[in-house]
């Protein structure tokens, strides 16, 4: 579980996070949504330790990150897996080497054990016969799966995903969403997903945080986001005509 209390972050004169308060639950897919510029990526990078917040508290499993010693901070970062928006796969390494990389760097496994674990996670994300291929030789959807495989290979306690289905067709996006949700439930991990995709919101949004201008404007789940009267959330979620029609149909019981 991750708890965030009054998190603030500025870049020179620009205050991006203006006091975010929220809680990400264990074993659930927690979604951060919000308009471009609302501070989602900065928030995610603060959670990952890539940005140091100006003030506020981030608690991992009940302990504030700010109170961790250096070695504890390194330990907690080893428990994190991250799926980057563009995949962030190492270009010069094959799929197998990319997935094996965290094991080589952070575990004491021998080569056989590492290969077996890599095979296991590649099978889990439904990637077969791609082990020896370079990232440039596989499709965008496959790259995302490799990125997910690399993020979970070390059995993390926290999984962070930055727009995991951006640039993918709706069917592949849905497959990726479901894969992340299944992995979250199977391993009982705390998953935080940063997304713009409303399909993801309605499919896997077990806990949804709506950020606006650097503050938490709404928090709920995929069931009560239909019913909310929060105008800002409605303006954002039902911005597209399709979702407006879906909402009207739902309210009219069609």
């Amino acid at each position: 579980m991750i708890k965030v209390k009054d998190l603030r972050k500025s870049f020179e004169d620009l205050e991006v996070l203006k006091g975010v308060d929220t809680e990400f639950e264990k074993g659930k897919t927690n979604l951060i949504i919000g308009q471009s510029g609302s501070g989602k990526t900065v928030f995610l990078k603060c959670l990952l330790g890539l940005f140091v917040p100006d003030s506020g508290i981030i608690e991992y499993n009940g302990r504030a990150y700010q109170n961790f010693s250096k070695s504890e901070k390194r330990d907690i970062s080893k428990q994190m897996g991250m799926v980057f928006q563009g995949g962030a796969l190492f270009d010069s390494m094959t799929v197998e080497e990319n997935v094996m990389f965290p094991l080589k760097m952070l575990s004491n496994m021998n080569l056989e054990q590492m290969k077996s674990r890599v095979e296991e996670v590649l099978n889990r994300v439904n990637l077969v016969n791609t082990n020896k291929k370079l990232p440039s030789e596989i499709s965008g959807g496959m790259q995302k799966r490799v990125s997910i495989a690399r993020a979970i290979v070390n059995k993390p306690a926290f999984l962070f995903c930055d727009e995991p289905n951006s640039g993918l067709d709706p069917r592949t996006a849905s497959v990726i969403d479901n894969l992340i949700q299944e992995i979250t439930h199977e391993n009982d991990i705390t998953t935080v997903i940063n997304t713009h995709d409303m399909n993801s919101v309605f499919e896997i949004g077990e806990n949804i945080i709506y950020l606006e201008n650097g503050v938490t404007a709404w928090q709920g789940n995929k069931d009560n986001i239909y019913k909310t009267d929060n105008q800002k959330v409605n303006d954002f979620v039902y911005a597209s005509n399709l979702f407006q029609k879906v909402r009207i149909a739902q309210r009219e019981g069609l």
Partner: protein
Amino acid sequence: MLTTYIKSIGQYFIMIYETFRRMTKTSELRRLIVQELNDLIVSSLGIVVFISFFIGAVIAIQTALNFSNPFVPKSLIGFAARQSIILEFAPTFVSIIMAGKVGSYITSSIGTMRVSEQIDALEVMGINSLNYLVFPKIVAMCMFPFVIAISMFVGIIGAYFAGVFGGFLSADEFLAGLQEDFIPFQVFYAFLKSFIFAFILATIPSFHGYYMRGGSLEVGHAATTSFVWTSVIIIFTNYFITQLLLS
């Protein structure tokens, strides 16, 4: 403007400090060093040999053509070629050529990793990205004085070929000139400065790549800026070392 420069200098020294902290696993580091040796040193040998041979030859021809006085011994051609190549051409100018080749490679490869979030991926895994990316380059560049030694040797061979086979002097005269007033300390001076230039060549382009912001266009911009700054600092350091050791 001045504040930006001072900030950058401070950031550079922090980068150096961070590079030597929290070392990457030895087995992985060994693999990275071998890879960097190949990318930075071995792959540069061809261009260094080519340039050194022909510059050595040109030095011999230019010296020969400018000695019109019959009282000046022809062996001076060999002497002048040796002095120019060992003292300046091999260590300094080969380093500037390497700033273009190796420096832009380092900046663009690290810059592309920054743009595509690969550096963030390393950091998230709890790996010291500076140690992982920059330290192997520094170690590999410790072999740079060997490149300079090859450049010296090939440059002198080039001068010999142009001088002797061009009919400007005999082989004996060239060899006599080559050995005339030889001061071993000058070779030490050349290797010492090539060692310092190697550190500059590994770290300044890394700095420009690591701290770049933006997209692919900025990667190109960072590579150009890195070449300019590496060359400027090599030339400045060259002056400083020469003043310190030879004057």
